[in-house]
């Protein structure tokens, strides 16, 4: 092998590396010169017949050339990787896909955030059955049969009049009062049912978030302070809330809690039906009849309770305009960017 041959081989290899347009081209160049049977490796085959001095010099030159070609291939490989567009959607073939981020349902996220707030204040979290008896859903809540207040909650019956799908989570409150002795601080999220036509703002399956406190002494001020804290934690310190008198048979005095309409800021719009406020739930001081039915002395114990329309809270939080989305098949989650916690 002469010096000229080596120079030619070097020029030839350099040109071919430069000319390679794909990784496959480059692989071919690599094997042609640097593979086990590559041209540079073959140069060593005639070594044994050469005198030692030539052998040493040629060996050094071949090694330099080999290093040079290796470097060129490496540089070219990096360059090709930078410009190469990955084959479309064949990620699986490469044994790798972008990790899917899992999400909790917005209702669960909202429940968790509310639970967190109340657990920090020493409340317990309870659940109750969705198939409920007339006793726990109505009678123990101061709503006897044929009471007009039953019109407020059109009921889906399993076996009329004894068994039904609970119309509110106040039924859990009735169960707690029946089972546990005060003092009590409890919240109860859950699914409820009413025989209502489904539209953008009503569904026959929705969610409530119930709260119950029974202590020797509670007041409306305590109730408002508690709810206000919740509102502000959920929607920010600038949230405007009002509490007004409202009738619910299970509480007295009864309270309706409204949030200044987030769509119109109180000016009046279709969402708030022009009144500037959106009703977010009911509350009040537990009616003494409830305590009496549960065998709790209403002279010694007082309670407050609240029942929040959870779906409305979620819609306000996540800017979902149609309640049907929450339980339908058209609620999807972002594939890559996940927000598992509320901010």
């Amino acid at each position, binding site marked *: 092998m002469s010096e000229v041959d080596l120079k030619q081989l070097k020029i030839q290899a350099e040109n071919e590396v430069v000319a390679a347009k794909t990784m496959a081209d480059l692989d071919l160049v690599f094997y042609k010169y640097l593979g086990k049977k590559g041209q540079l490796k073959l140069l060593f085959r005639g070594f044994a017949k050469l005198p030692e001095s030539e052998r040493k010099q040629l060996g050094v030159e071949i090694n330099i050339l080999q290093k040079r070609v290796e470097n060129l291939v490496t540089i070219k490989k990096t360059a090709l990787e930078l410009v190469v567009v990955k084959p479309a959607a064949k990620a699986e073939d490469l044994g790798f896909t972008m990790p899917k981020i*899992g999400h909790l349902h917005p209702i669960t996220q909202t429940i*968790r955030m509310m639970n967190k707030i109340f657990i920090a204040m020493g409340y317990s979290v309870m659940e109750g059955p969705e198939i409920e008896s007339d006793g726990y859903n109505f009678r123990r809540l101061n709503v006897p049969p044929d009471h007009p207040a039953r019109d407020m909650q059109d009921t889906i*019956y399993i076996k009329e009049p004894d068994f039904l799908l609970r119309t509110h989570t106040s039924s859990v409150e009735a169960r707690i009062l029946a089972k546990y002795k005060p003092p009590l601080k409890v919240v109860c999220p859950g*699914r409820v049912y009413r025989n209502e036509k489904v539209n953008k703002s009503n569904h026959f399956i929705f969610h409530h978030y119930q709260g119950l406190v029974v202590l020797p002494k509670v*007041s409306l001020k*305590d109730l*408002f302070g*508690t709810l206000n804290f919740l509102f502000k934690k959920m929607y920010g310190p600038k949230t405007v809330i009002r509490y007004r008198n409202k009738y619910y048979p299970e509480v007295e005095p*009864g309270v309706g809690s409204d949030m200044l309409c987030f769509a119109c800021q109180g000016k009046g719009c279709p969402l708030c039906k022009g009144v500037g406020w959106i009703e977010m739930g009911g509350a009040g001081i537990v009616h*003494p009849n409830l305590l009496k039915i549960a065998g709790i002395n209403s002279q010694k114990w007082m309670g407050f309770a609240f029942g929040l329309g959870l779906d409305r809270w979620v819609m306000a939080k996540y800017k979902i305009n149609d309640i049907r989305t929450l339980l339908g098949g058209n609620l999807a989650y972002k594939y890559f960017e996940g927000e598992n916690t509320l901010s």
Partner: protein
Amino acid sequence: MKVLYSQLKQLVPGLKASSKQVGLKFAMAGFLLDGLKKVSFQGKKDWLLSFEVRQNRADCLGIVGLAREAAAFYGLKCQLPETGVLPKTGKASFALVEAKTAVKRALAVEIQGVKNKQSPSWLKEFLSFYDINSINLLVDLSNYAMIFTGYPSHLLDKNKISGSLCWAQNKDFKEITTLDATKIVLKGGEIILKDDSRILGLAGIVGGKQAMIDLKTTNLIVEMAIYDRAKIRRDSRALKITTEASVRLEKDLSPEGLDYVIGFLTSLILKEVGGKMPSCPLFSFYPHKQTMPKIKFNPGMPGVFAGIPIRESKCFQILKNLRFRVKKLSKNSWQVVPPLDRMDIAIGQDLVEEVVRVFGFEKIPIDELPVFPVVKTITPLDIELAEKASDILTTLGFDEIRSWTLTTMEMNLRTSWISWQNIATQNSVNEEFPDLRQSIAASLILELREYDKRNVAKIRIFEIGRVFGRVQNNFQEKEMLGLLIKGKDALQNCKMAAETLLRSLGFRKVGYLIAKAKPLAASPNSCWNILANNKIIGIIYQLGQAEVKETAFLEIDLSLMNKHLAGLATNPVVELDNKLVALDANIELGLKGDLRALLTKIEADIGQNYLWALEVVDQFALKDKIRYTIKATYKNLSDKAAKAIHLKVFSL
């Protein structure tokens, strides 16, 4: 209930607050303002306020009731129109009451020689605010009286009645044709108005065509009554008729209010339609006179309930403004008697609400978080477990779904794997989905179809929720975790999810057993029960070809899982008094030997007090058996004691 602002001002002459201020005051005091509309009435600008009336305030389903409230809010007097045309007692014999238990009070008055005609424009315009069409002057005046006082009345053409007007329980009539010519099939037992041979109306609900008032009417009977409200409600529900009258009469209207109302309407008729009353015009049935409770009341209580001081003098003033009679018995004890129309007031707490709502909810601070005593926590473990499970699944890339718990019977038949019966609702609003789901698969498969429609690929979803079933006569429900995967290797991935979930929750051993009960939706050869620490807690299966391709589903009973978890040691903390001692031992097992069983035995032999860890660190295949190198790490033992146990347990 709607009311014109001008009418409120007319009845409460001193009212200075604007319509908006009045609306706000009412809203805060229990009557949510759900509409404030600028209108024109009798050529003058006016406001129509619309209030949501509390279910227990039947007295406010008329303008008079709202005017009384307005007067009380602003400490003003309410001036009602004078009426005094009727005698105080009724001796007329043209009517009788047979349904004595259902009728609390009935009044009827006869008017002769009226000249009925079309209504004047003011009346038509007024009724239009309430979406009531004008019929003729007599009928319109009756409707006007109802809107004004809140009490429904019923006018009958006396000349069309044969014999006596009678309130009775229906035994004879199969149907009635109402005033608007609708035929209603009767079920029997309804409270009706009849004469000697015909049905004249459904009492408290709707009048009949037989004695209908028309422009030719000259002699009439005005009747009004208060019934057992529950009976009116039941009749109205059973016959599926809701009217302005039934809405009012199924609430607690005061029987005492009838005196004013019948006087008011009779005066109007005599003034607007003419006519005269006979010498004995009034029929009256009132067997049990209404009495009001005498309530003992502590004037300090409103302040206690509100959480802010409310002076006694203020309490007194508010109760007086609300027309309550207050007698001070001692320092902290008053006797309070509500006015006759306030049927909602019965106990001290009712009075507290009255005082606080008029005093003003807006005066109670809202930004003071109460400091309550610490109480015992009663949160069940199931809630924590469900939360943990969903956290693990989202970490594994699953999205949580919340879906309908109602489904079809067919879907239940395909997906149920628990031995229980279907539960159907009696009146589901959605007729396509009348039954409660027996498996979460019923919901997730529907969800999957929705995603398919929207071209969402690689579905990994789960739901935690209730499933329902009937066992004999008991309705049961269980909290379940359902998980569904669609895509390549769905079943394998489903198993991986199950194992990761269960091991993360604390189960050491997860296994599968060919399912005893296989749901129809499952591929029969790919359906197993899920075992956690040898206990069945759920099911896992590949969906059959008839369902969805490349889809697997698993369902775990969270209560069962929680029950088994509760049996495991819950304290993970130990105090290490000595250094840990690790010792190796070789054991040989035949090719069919059960290594897990052997390790379990070793674990039991060493005991929890001394065993820290047990690991297989090496294995070597011999000719017909395998040699395992086991590393046992001991705690709370000296080197010598550990070695002694080690030698004994491994028979070295």
